[in-house]
């Protein structure tokens, strides 16, 4: 017992020492004279070659196990390296993967409760990155993730006590952060009243079904209500009111598809203005595409300016017309001087004709025209 704890104690000390050393190294490598001689990327590569979890500042996590939850959902259990700064239940991490040479990043809520050493992300197989995670990531793989972020959490116990009555409301893959919150409530022996309402297509689509049944047995004041949309249609606010009569006395944590949450938000605003409602929205809402030449609103995050792009002119010309002076060069798409990150929205490449709506994409302003409202890092 003694040896095991002393080894784990020493390991803990080694990790903290590494944190101090790596921060120092990063600071030194940023000095111009030092970076002239040794690139930070070179040091990072050497560290990664020594051990895949080693990094100067990036959080890397090893996939410890993969659990199949439903026919299209898997949970990846991750063991992070020493750069991991912890997470509050309900927060998310951004997972970075490289697919066919290109880096992609997606946010996934941690379904694990805070305080557990191993992290869990529960991924539904539906898009490019989630398909990659399902098909290519096996135990032993190492992923690069961001630190945790997000405000969809229980109140900080030091600052204010937990509410006496809680409603956890989720739909589809929105169950992931809500499950983390429920696990956290269980771990801290929460004695208040919890109602958990979840909507999904049918019984086989219910993620965490076994664990939810188990928690019902372990938490006497937990009430579980599942709503299957294939049988009863979508969960409307009126139906919710019927399931949870004392809705106005509950603090609610809600997560699910955007349109459904919008309806819930409207209901709360009109019927329950005094009740606390916390919600988590995954990603930004998709933008409506416009026809060529129709006006589109361009929001520039760096300069804080917004202007309307009218006509089919390139974003570079439109920005200049609006009084901005973006960096530019050849103005014909070959020198990459005007490249800029498009946070969201659709643009068309006027040289290739390709339309792309990906988030956080680098585009060349001199050959791109807006095809929807666009947000640029300009």
């Amino acid at each position: 017992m003694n040896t095991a704890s002393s080894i784990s104690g020493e390991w803990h000390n080694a990790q903290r020492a590494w944190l101090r050393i790596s921060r120092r190294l990063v600071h030194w490598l940023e000095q111009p004279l030092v970076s002239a001689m040794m690139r930070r990327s070179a040091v990072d590569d050497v560290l990664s070659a020594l051990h895949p979890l080693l990094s100067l500042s990036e959080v890397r996590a090893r996939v410890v196990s993969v659990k199949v939850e439903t026919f299209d959902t898997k949970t990846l259990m991750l063991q992070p390296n020493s750069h991991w700064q912890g997470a509050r239940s309900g927060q998310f991490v951004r997972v970075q993967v490289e697919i066919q040479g290109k880096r992609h990043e997606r946010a996934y809520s941690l379904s694990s409760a805070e305080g557990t050493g191993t992290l869990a992300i529960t991924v539904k197989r539906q898009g490019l990155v989630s398909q990659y995670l399902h098909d290519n990531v096996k135990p032993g793989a190492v992923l690069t993730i961001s630190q945790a972020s997000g405000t969809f959490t229980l109140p900080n116990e030091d600052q204010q006590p937990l509410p006496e009555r809680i409603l956890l409301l989720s739909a589809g893959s929105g169950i992931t952060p809500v499950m983390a919150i429920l696990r956290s409530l269980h771990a801290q022996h929460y004695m208040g009243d919890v109602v958990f309402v979840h909507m999904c297509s049918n019984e086989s689509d219910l993620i965490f079904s076994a664990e939810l049944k188990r928690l019902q047995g372990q938490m006497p004041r937990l009430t579980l209500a599942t709503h299957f949309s294939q049988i009863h249609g979508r969960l409307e606010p009126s139906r919710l009111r019927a399931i949870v009569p004392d809705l106005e006395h509950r603090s609610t944590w809600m997560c699910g598809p955007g349109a459904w949450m919008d309806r819930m938000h409207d209901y709360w605003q009109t019927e329950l203005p005094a009740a606390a409602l916390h919600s988590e929205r995954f990603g930004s809402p998709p933008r409506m595409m416009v026809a060529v030449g129709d006006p589109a609103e361009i929001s520039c995050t760096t300069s804080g300016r917004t202007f309307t792009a009218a006509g089919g002119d390139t974003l570079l010309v439109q920005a200049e017309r609006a009084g901005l002076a973006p960096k530019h060069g050849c103005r014909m798409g070959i020198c990459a001087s005007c490249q800029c990150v498009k946070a969201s929205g659709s643009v068309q490449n006027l040289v290739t004709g390709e339309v792309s709506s990906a988030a956080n994409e680098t585009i060349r302003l001199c050959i791109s025209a807006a095809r929807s409202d666009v947000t640029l890092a300009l």
Partner: protein
Amino acid sequence: MTYTALPALSRAQIDAIEQEVNAIRKSVMDTVGQADVDHIRKMIHICRASEITGRALLHFGFGPVSWVTGVLALANAKVLDNMEIGHNVMHGQYDWTGDPRLNSQTFKWDIACDEEQWRHSHNVNHHTHTNILGKDRDFGYSLLRLSSEQKWKPRHLLQPLANLILALGFQYGVGSHDLEVGRYKYGKVSKEAFKSKLDRFLQKCGRQWFKDYLFFPVLSLWNAPRVLVGNLCANLIRNLWTYVVIFCGHFTEGVALYRAEDCRNETRGDWYIRQLTGSSNLSGSRLFHIMTGHLSHQIEHHLFPDMPAHRYPEVAPQIQALCAKYGLRYNTGSLWKQYSTVLKRIFMHSLPSRAAPARA
């Protein structure tokens, strides 16, 4: 040399060339993916390993054999960093990966040239105005007279010597190119703009000298002279090699020169033709191509500057076929042949041209 008479192409033919070149570009760019990223990362690893080996041999070795191998390994690293890696990454050929280490706007290379200034003089200026006399400042580097259209001045008599000095210190030539000293002297560049560029250039030079001529020699203690001279020779080898390869890109016999007035309202097809006829290639082995950073495929590079360079040999046969189809010259040859025509140009135009230049 006169303005080259190009085969008369109809507007329809030029448009057809535009479509065909676009199609060739699309066929490669649609397939750009993991293999391309793996290639450039492999080049970066080889470059680093070569640098570490070279510097270690110079630092810790004794005797001439370890010195020569050390210098060659370090020179190899510097050449790869300058050509296959630096030039290509800063062209934006790998921006699509989203890897911040391969981003054209933040990449740093191991020569005495500020990266932002290089991107301006090369990506923006040279690639847009390729071979337009008076606009493409890369033609002769504002130093050498290479065609009879350029006005002869008595200083051109010394240009064989200027050429030698430029070759030996090529990294400084490249580094100071964007300062536009000539234009500054004629008052076309403001004092503030010039000073800020000069400061950045000198800062980069300072960092390079600190690294190669102070830090590493001092670090090696008693081996300081050996390391200092070794670093100097490695830089020299890189300078000479990059000079030869780059000069063979646009200064060989037969490259077309253009007048600014002929290039107004250029279509993309016109631009493609100007890029093609204004560039020349070098033939060689796969290793040779890598060591030139694929600038041996100058024609393909000028048609597709943001295509990962190691794909140029793939499209070269298609471009050659296109040239044959439309009667355009595909200017290529061995390194010796092409460079000898460059030298011939330098010597020939150090003297005033005998007859008035004939207009095409």
